């Protein structure tokens, strides 16, 4: 009996009211979901329509839902931290708890919020923009999602079971070696990221092939929409960067699990190697998430200025050069490691070079607005919020890249303010713009503009109130990851202001949730399929897009083909002849990805607790799924012409 008690008190995280609250909430929500599904007999629907779907549009929606949940969790972490720092000598969070929270905040926001939100938008928009029926490998796409989902769940589980990781979001050893972090939190970190990381890598491969091989006839590379270009640049970066992450974390795991010495203090281990490796992935990673945001802004600016994107070729060149140069800047994260003046100078300059194509993009967006007809709908508002925020954040980035000055900025709140400015002002604002922009295409109704404006202003004002003081705090010598500070530091006022700003952003998020719920209730249906007077192919089909996307393959003649077509029709041109409908070849749903990802989850959980009786069957299950799927030849079917006709007629009824 005592044994069971001991086990339970180790297994479950105890002693914190926050966590007991979470336990209760998790149980209640689970019971409620099961009850609702059972009562309404929705289990079959859930399995057929969502868990086994290979439709890129549904996978995109699931990515986005999961990302918004993670945004909530990461945001709560952020508010807990800001509450702890609101005034000196606060005792709201213990140092150990604070360390866990900044670790999970960082990991969740980058890997389980930004990445899935980005993949969600890839999935929603790319096949539609290039006139494809689906991605190149639909089952793989579904597997990517479920691996991400299971990885994220495994990571989040550490909050209530076993204990959260507390070694920082990049988990520098030797602090994260068994010697200093004997608990299971660090293993949750490794396995959560590993499992979802495999998914990310596969998504990268999937979208490269999709973009290179599945474009509509006539769409040459230089006629692709800019968002598609940015996805290509980002995916290329993913397939080069993510293997480094996988190997690095695998080495750390071998250290912890088998007692090897890759990154230990002793036995010939070298922690500096880890720091180099993790940033060889880590720096490209931030460009992986920002490049698609650049793509979204390019679409939004052109659409809402009703004008062609300025400098298309410059833009493409800028995107691709950023993804190449991003691999040569990693050491700027540790100028203070004593690599010597020449090494530091090299990485300082390679970092500054990235500012050039980035600056060019900003000019491109501004000149796209020039002599346009700009309407400030919510996607455009976020773009207008983005430009100044990102330009300032980029400039402080250039300041940080000046190696000898970085000795004074490094690890301080100046750095914190900088990367939040580019990640919130760039990535988050960008994905919000994309979410508002493509929302009608995803669901067939628009989001309420008025509530959207409230959310926008709260986020924007909150952002500056939160992070501008942090630049000053950094220069005053406030180091990141301090869980408390004294009255004698003089940091009180600025921290107070910063915390107020964080809560304003939290209010902005609540307005977004309200906006979505309100818009579902008072639905403004998009019957045109083209609510923004769009330019690219996704706006030429009904909202939400039919399962097969395009009834017939679109023929592309120029950049912004749909816009040009509308212009031609408006000036009295004859509509293009419609090719006859043919049966459409589609992939069949598959339960394999969900089952396989569940086995990965079981294996990961087993490894976290060193339970081989659980890990080994999990891995066997994974292998069995692979084998079974290799012999599955029943993977596709045809949609007959009369069904296409019925669907098209129903979708166009409103027009």
């Amino acid at each position, binding site marked *: 009996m005592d044994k069971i008690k001991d086990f339970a008190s180790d297994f479950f995280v105890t002693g914190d009211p926050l966590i007991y609250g979470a336990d209760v909430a998790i149980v209640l929500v689970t019971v409620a979901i099961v009850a609702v599904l059972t009562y309404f007999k929705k289990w079959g629907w859930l399995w057929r329509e969502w868990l086994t779907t290979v439709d890129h549009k549904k996978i995109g929606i699931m990515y986005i839902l999961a990302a918004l949940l993670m945004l909530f969790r990461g945001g709560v972490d952020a508010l807990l931290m800001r509450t702890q720092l609101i005034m000196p000598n606060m005792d709201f969070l213990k*140092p150990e708890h604070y360390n866990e929270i900044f670790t999970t905040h960082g990991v969740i926001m980058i890997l389980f919020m930004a990445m899935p939100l980005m993949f969600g938008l890839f999935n929603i928009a790319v096949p539609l923009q290039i006139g494809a029926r689906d991605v190149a490998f639909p089952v793989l796409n579904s597997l990517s999602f479920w691996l991400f989902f299971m990885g994220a769940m495994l990571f989040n589980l550490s909050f209530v079971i076993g204990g959260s990781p*507390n*070694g920082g979001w990049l988990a520098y050893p030797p*602090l994260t070696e068994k010697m*200093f*972090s*004997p608990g299971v939190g660090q293993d949750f970190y490794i396995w959560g990221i590993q499992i979802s990381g495999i998914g990310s890598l596969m998504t990268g491969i999937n979208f490269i092939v999709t973009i290179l091989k599945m474009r509509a006839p006539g769409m040459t590379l230089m006629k692709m929409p800019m968002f598609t270009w940015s996805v290509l640049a980002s995916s290329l970066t993913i397939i080069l960067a993510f293997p480094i992450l996988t190997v690095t974390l695998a080495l750390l795991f071998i250290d912890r699990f088998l007692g090897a010495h890759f990154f*230990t*203090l*002793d036995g010939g281990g*070298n922690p*500096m190697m880890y720091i180099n490796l993790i940033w060889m992935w880590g720096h490209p990673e931030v460009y992986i998430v920002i490049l698609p945001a650049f793509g979204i802004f390019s679409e939004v600016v052109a659409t809402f200025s*009703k*004008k*062609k*994107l*300025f*400098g298309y070729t*410059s833009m493409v060149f800028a995107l691709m050069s950023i993804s190449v140069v991003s691999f040569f800047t990693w050491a700027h994260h540790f100028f*203070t*490691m*004593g690599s010597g*003046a020449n090494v530091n*100078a090299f990485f*300082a*300059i390679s970092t*500054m070079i990235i*500012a050039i194509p980035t*600056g*060019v993009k900003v*000019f491109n967006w*501004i*000149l*796209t607005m020039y*002599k*346009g*007809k700009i309407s400030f709908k919510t996607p455009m508002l976020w773009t*207008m919020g983005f430009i100044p925020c990102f330009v300032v954040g980029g400039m402080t980035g*250039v300041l940080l*890249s000046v*190696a*000898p*000055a*970085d*000795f*004074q900025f*490094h*690890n301080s709140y100046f750095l914190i303010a900088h990367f939040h400015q580019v990640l919130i002002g760039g990535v988050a604002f960008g994905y919000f713009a994309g979410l508002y922009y493509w929302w009608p295409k995803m669901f067939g109704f628009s989001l309420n503009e008025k509530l959207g404006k409230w959310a926008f202003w709260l986020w924007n004002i909150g952002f500056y109130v939160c992070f501008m003081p942090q630049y*000053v705090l950094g*220069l*005053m*010598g406030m*180091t990141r*990851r*301090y869980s408390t*500070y004294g009255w004698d530091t*003089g940091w009180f*006022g*600025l921290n107070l*202001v910063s915390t107020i700003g964080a809560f304003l952003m939290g209010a902005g998020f609540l307005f977004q949730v309200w906006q979505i719920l309100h818009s579902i209730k008072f639905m403004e249906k998009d019957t045109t399929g083209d609510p923004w007077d769009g330019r690219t192919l996704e706006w030429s089909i009904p909202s939400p897009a039919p399962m097969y996307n395009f009834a017939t393959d679109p023929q592309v003649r120029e950049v912004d083909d749909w816009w040009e077509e509308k212009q031609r029709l408006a000036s009295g041109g004859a509509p293009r002849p419609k090719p006859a409908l043919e049966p459409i070849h589609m992939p069949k749903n598959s339960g394999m990805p969900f089952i396989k990802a569940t086995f990965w989850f079981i294996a990961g959980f087993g490894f976290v607790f060193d339970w081989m009786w659980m890990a080994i069957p999990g891995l066997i299950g994974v292998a069995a799924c692979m084998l079974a799927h290799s012999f599955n030849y029943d993977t596709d079917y045809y949609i007959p012409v009369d069904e296409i006709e019925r669907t098209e007629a129903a979708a166009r009824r409103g027009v």
Partner: protein
Amino acid sequence: MKMKGWYRRLAAMLPLAAIAFLLSGCGVNMGVLDPKGTIARQQLDLIIISSILCVIILVPVLVMTFWIAWKYRSNRKQGDAAYKPNWSHSGKIEAVMWGVPIVIILILAIITVQFTHKLEPSKALASEEKPITIEVVSLDWKWLFLYPEQGIATVNFVQFPKGVPVEFKLTADSPMNSFWIPQLGGQIYTMSGMAMELNLIADEEGEYPGKGANFTGEHFGKMGFIAKASSQEEFDQWVADVKKSSPSLSQQGYDELAEQSVIDTKVTYSSFPDGLFDRIVTKYSAGTGSGHHHGSSSSAGEANDSGHEGMNHEGMDMGAEGATASSASQTAATEEHEHHHE
């Protein structure tokens, strides 16, 4: 109307409140913005120069953004006369668009390279005075300072004469930290198994807050220290006092100090074991072999079993036990090794 006045008053209040907050900073330490040493002063100069270069490009971009967005808004009065939906390319403008950032970055790059060499932390500082060497060890969670020339040691407090170059030699006997005294100059990592070098000089007397700037676990926030720059006479007097009245630091004392704990006060020692710093650096190097290092990376439970319980603090978690047990055994092992060298 009443509403409007209220808004205006609030708008006027906000910047005032902001200024009040910043002014409250005058009484307190402004860190990087208030340099007291040659290095920090040059670094601040560099920060200012690079900021100006950035502002040169920042201001026009911001003005252009908002001016263009306002001028070409869809509900503007002048109608559609200026609307050019297909204008999307101009060789001249694009040349400027690429050219201006390239020039700015080129200038900044040249300045950066120069300063990178000039401010390389391991470079000795030019001075008439003979430099003083101070060895620094970051431990969990405190700073140990060793004065090889004076033969004294301190914890969480370091004193040196103003106007005399200080040659810090740094290492870690714990996870990587970062040694930072904002008012004297930028930081450098402290890493186990290697000795880093940081050269600083204080131009004025004063007490400057120092930080452990890299996260090293639970109580890393308690790793602040005071760097005091005094006159040469005061420094000599202080050394003499420490030598006379402080206890000495033994090897065993060091091993206890190296265990995970927080020390809130400053501590001084009248002496420390010969070659302590070098021993700390070399004990992790590959040559010492891995045979001695049981317990470090195998599970903590095993480390516990191997007979080191006696050295552990009560109430420490398993990780701390494993860590201290292994570092203590390593120190013992490397002592022998060092003997051969000397």
